């Protein structure tokens, strides 16, 4: 058989319908003439001969159609017919088309955007080879501090040797602050962020170098020649994607470092391990340099093939408790535990619930959109029932009419999807470049095959959803009903009105749920923003300061004092101070305990956040000194070991007593407590504050870098220049680091919540708008259809206000039914998002009350416009027009 050949001809014929029809007509004409001639020869009259020829031929039109079916693609022919008709109809009713496509574009666009985010964060595997075999190892029950999510170099090495479950285990140094290095080259020194990674880190992840090579073992030993790997964006930005960069040396913080390679575009360290952070380069973490520095490696391992997570966890439960904190001091009891989580779940686990809520919210938007369109189509169907009646009378089967309706819905849905896709594309490219949103993997959000497939699915589902109601309506009623109902009767068909009302009530209920959800999240967000941070971020700003103290404590003290003094003298600056660490940024903890009679045991030590600060820092941050005094320059110059503790430490170590003047064991040495400050939220606005201490930069507590914090009446942007000028005067090598408002640290920490609130809020607004459109549509349609009835009533003496009242009463009846159902549904659903709320009960009365009032008002407004129109009806005109 020649199937491909026939298919080819059929497709070809499909596109050549007109010439083929013409040829067939010629052929048929010649057939009929020959038949007529033959009949005449047999002795018939010309008329009879022609009639006989036609009879023998059968239906000409029938023959034509058979011909078409035999040669072309009959199904597609019908579809094309439907499409042509659809386009004609939609073009004629362009107002309806515009509204429908716009509503669909919003609904579908929102769905695509959210699905892309969900797809990237939850569904798509991490951008590493066999990423489902990658495991993150942290302590069981970790606190908010990174120290409980990291291990010492010795513990890491021991685990690497003892375990049999992992093909490899590696890690990275978890306490790198932003801009920890400076690139010295042409022009001003450039602050860059370099992450220290342990041996085999990239190999464990399965990342290959794009250019050059990865680190080798020889580069992880003490005094090895320094090398660095560049991240792709840094290579592009700083070196213009120079392919000869491999082998060149660069000056990193006064060390000559050889660039050995460039990492691929697809590897974004920040988006996986430290959301919102940009990372410029990677350098080897040389274990021997960190043996005495405590927990600092964040561990990632790759499971051996065939080893399950459970088996690896059982082995880890055996190994971790035996691990030593430090080989040199086997007497230090580390008490390690190890909890294994698939890396993907570790990265996105916390977001799962939020994202699912978001997903449900857009799903509801889509439902509302569909309900709205159903309603629009229904009122259109009512207006078109004559047309359908006519077509039916002319022989169109019910199936054909249904198909026509479905074709229309499909065309609308696909057009909506196309615009929605565009909308989503712009939203996503905006989102992907929002470094300020601390969501993992956000920079990798893009529209991929999955998203396109889901868009198509959404479009089809939507089309079926909103196309079905009118279709059902069509097949339920019979032809006569349709024709009768379409007449300019006195009032709307009962059944018809009931369906439309049910749809509007559904819409309002869905909007209620969205508004309640958004309201609860918004209230939580306001609570978070309102939280007492323990410092005042407004009007304070910080800048990373570079200086060269030659590792001399006295010199450093002098430099710090000069910086603080000169910064305080800048016009507009109220106070200035230095700290090597800022809240909600880097995260480091030591131990503190009260000095007692006996020698302190390990278990006595409280893990405590450490800030090495200059005098004035507390004031510059707007922190509250509750008792005692601030650190003074004398403390530093005289190398006095003093410590300021926060309330939590005071309460834990000296409950019910004043800690001032007591001696603490802090950071491995004795220090006198000189002050108590209010607790600061050190990891985020939502996390309870832990123990904190503030130490002077003396010999024992050497700082790691320095941040100058200034408090001023002026906006940070106005201060950036004079501050930088001053710093350059003190140290010409000061890199052009960013002058960052402290508020931005807080904003960064609250950004995921703000992101969700914003999105859910937008969806709720959209839902509300659509619901009000729905109410307006139904009521105004009812008023139009009841013109005559209203006219009669007015003629019989009903006042304008009574007419208005009636319309508004009808509206409110719908709205109240919707609000009632929505209220109950919200009560049930709100509990599901309880874990996302902060300081807000899922049954928060103001939120629920606000929802009822808001929706009531919106309904009132949506009903008021048609009510006014109704009251303006002139009975004479209304009655005459019938």
């Amino acid at each position, binding site marked *: *058989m*020649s199937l491909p*050949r*026939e298919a080819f*001809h*059929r497709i070809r*014929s499909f596109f050549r319908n007109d010439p083929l029809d013409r*040829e*067939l007509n*010629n*052929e*048929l004409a*010649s*057939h009929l*003439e*020959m*038949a007529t*001639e*033959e009949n005449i020869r047999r002795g018939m009259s010309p008329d009879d001969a022609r009639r006989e020829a036609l009879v*023998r*031929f*059968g*239906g*000409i039109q*029938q*023959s034509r159609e*058979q*011909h078409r*079916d*035999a*040669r072309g693609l009959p199904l597609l022919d019908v579809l094309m017919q439907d499409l042509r008709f659809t386009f004609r109809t939609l073009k004629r009713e362009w107002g309806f088309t515009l509204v429908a496509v716009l509503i669909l574009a919003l609904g579908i666009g929102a769905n695509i955007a959210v699905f892309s985010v969900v797809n990237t964060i939850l569904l798509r595997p991490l951008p590493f080879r066999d990423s489902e075999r990658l495991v993150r190892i942290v302590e069981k029950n970790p606190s908010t501090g990174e120290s409980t999510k990291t291990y010492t170099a010795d513990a890491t090495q021991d685990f690497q040797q003892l375990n049999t479950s992992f093909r490899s285990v590696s890690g990275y140094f978890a306490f790198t602050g932003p801009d920890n290095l400076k690139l010295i080259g042409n022009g001003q020194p450039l602050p860059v962020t370099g992450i220290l990674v342990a041996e085999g880190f990239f190999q464990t992840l399965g990342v290959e170098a794009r250019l050059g090579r990865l680190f080798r073992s020889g580069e992880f030993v003490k005094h090895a020649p320094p090398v660095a790997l560049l991240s792709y964006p840094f290579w592009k930005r700083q070196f213009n994607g120079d392919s000869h960069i491999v082998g060149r040396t660069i000056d990193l913080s006064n060390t000559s470092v050889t660039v050995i390679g460039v990492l691929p575009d697809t590897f974004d360290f920040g988006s996986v391990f430290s959301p919102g952070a940009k990372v410029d380069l990677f350098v080897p973490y040389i274990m021997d340099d960190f043996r005495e520095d405590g927990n600092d490696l964040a561990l990632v391992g790759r499971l051996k093939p065939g080893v399950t997570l459970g088996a690896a966890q059982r082995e880890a439960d055996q190994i971790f408790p035996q691990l030593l904190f430090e080989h040199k001091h086997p007497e230090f009891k580390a008490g390690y535990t190890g909890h294994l989580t698939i890396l993907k779940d570790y990265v996105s686990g916390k977001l799962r619930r939020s994202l699912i809520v978001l997903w449900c919210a857009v799903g509801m938007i889509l439902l509302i959109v569909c309900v709205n369109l159903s309603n629009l189509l229904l009122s259109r169907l009512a207006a078109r029932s004559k047309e359908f009646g006519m077509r039916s009378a002319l022989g169109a089967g019910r199936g054909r009419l249904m198909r026509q309706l479905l074709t229309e819905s499909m065309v609308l849905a696909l057009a909506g999807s196309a615009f929605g896709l565009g909308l989503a594309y712009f939203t996503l490219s905006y989102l992907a470049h929002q470094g300020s949103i601390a969501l993992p993997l956000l920079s990798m959000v893009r529209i991929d095959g999955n998203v396109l497939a889901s868009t198509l699915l959404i479009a089809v589902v939507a089309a079926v959803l909103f196309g079905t109601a009118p279709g059902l309506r069509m097949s339920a009623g019979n032809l006569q009903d349709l024709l009768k109902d379409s007449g300019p009767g006195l009032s709307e068909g009962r059944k018809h009105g009931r369906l439309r009302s049910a749809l509007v009530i559904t819409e309002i209920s869905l909007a209620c749920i969205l508004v309640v959800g958004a309201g609860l999240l918004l209230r939580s967000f306001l609570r978070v923003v309102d939280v007492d941070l323990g410092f005042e971020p407004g009007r304070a700003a910080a800048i990373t300061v570079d200086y060269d103290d030659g590792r001399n404590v006295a010199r450093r003290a002098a430099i710090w004092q000069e910086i603080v003094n000169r910064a305080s003298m800048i016009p507009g600056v109220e106070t200035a101070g230095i700290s090597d660490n800022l809240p909600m940024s880097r995260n480091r903890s030591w131990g503190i305990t009260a000095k007692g009679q006996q020698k302190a045991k390990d278990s006595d030590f409280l893990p405590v956040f450490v800030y090495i600060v200059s005098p004035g820092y507390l004031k510059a941050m707007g922190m509250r000194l509750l008792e005692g005094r601030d650190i003074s320059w004398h403390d530093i110059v005289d190398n006095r070991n003093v410590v300021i503790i926060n309330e939590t430490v005071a309460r834990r170590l000296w409950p019910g007593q004043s800690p001032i003047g007591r001696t603490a064991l802090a950071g491995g040495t004795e220090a006198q407590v000189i002050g108590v400050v209010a607790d600061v939220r050190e990891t985020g606005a939502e996390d309870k504050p832990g123990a904190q201490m503030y130490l002077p930069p003396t010999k024992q507590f050497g700082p790691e870098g320095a941040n100058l914090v200034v408090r001023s009446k002026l906006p940070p942007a106005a201060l950036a220049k004079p501050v930088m000028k001053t710093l350059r005067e003190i140290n010409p090598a000061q890199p052009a680091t960013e002058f960052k408002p402290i508020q931005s640290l807080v904003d960064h920490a609250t950004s995921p919540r703000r992101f969700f609130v914003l999105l859910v809020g937008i969806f709720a607004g959209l839902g509300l708008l659509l619901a009000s459109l729905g109410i307006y549509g139904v009521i105004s349609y009812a008023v139009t259809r009841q013109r005559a009835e209203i006219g009669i009533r007015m003629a019989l003496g009903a006042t304008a206000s009574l007419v208005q009242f009636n319309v508004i009463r009808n509206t409110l009846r719908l709205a109240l039914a919707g609000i009632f159902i929505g209220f109950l549904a919200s009560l049930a659903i709100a509990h599901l998002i309880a874990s996302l709320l902060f300081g807000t009960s899922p049954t928060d009365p103001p939120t629920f009350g606000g929802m009822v009032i808001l929706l009531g008002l919106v309904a009132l407004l949506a009903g008021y416009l048609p009510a006014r129109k109704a009251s303006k009806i002139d009975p004479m005109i209304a009655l005459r027009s019938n």
Partner: protein
Amino acid sequence: MGESKLDLLQGTLDVMVLQTLEVLGPLHGYGIARRIEQVSGNEVLLNQGTIYASLVRLQQRGWIAAQWGISENNRKAKFYSITKSGRKRLAHDTAYWRRLAAVMGRVLAMDDEGGKN
């Protein structure tokens, strides 16, 4: 068979057309239709118009070829002729119909004892 004419089985018309062309050589649609009517002794229910769907189908499958020409009465008409693959097809179909007819004949001739009468 009396008054009622034979309804054409699916596909039988195609075979008739092929056979007609094989025997008579190039012929136009009207000629083919008339020929089939004559040969079947007017026993076949054939709207002449249906022949054209069959012709286009056979043409698309490559079993017949078509060309415009002049008829015996000096009239422009489309002439169809059987192709090489059309002959092959005809041979195949002929064998099939013969076998089917033989089997049907035997089955319908069966008596109560299951043997031939």
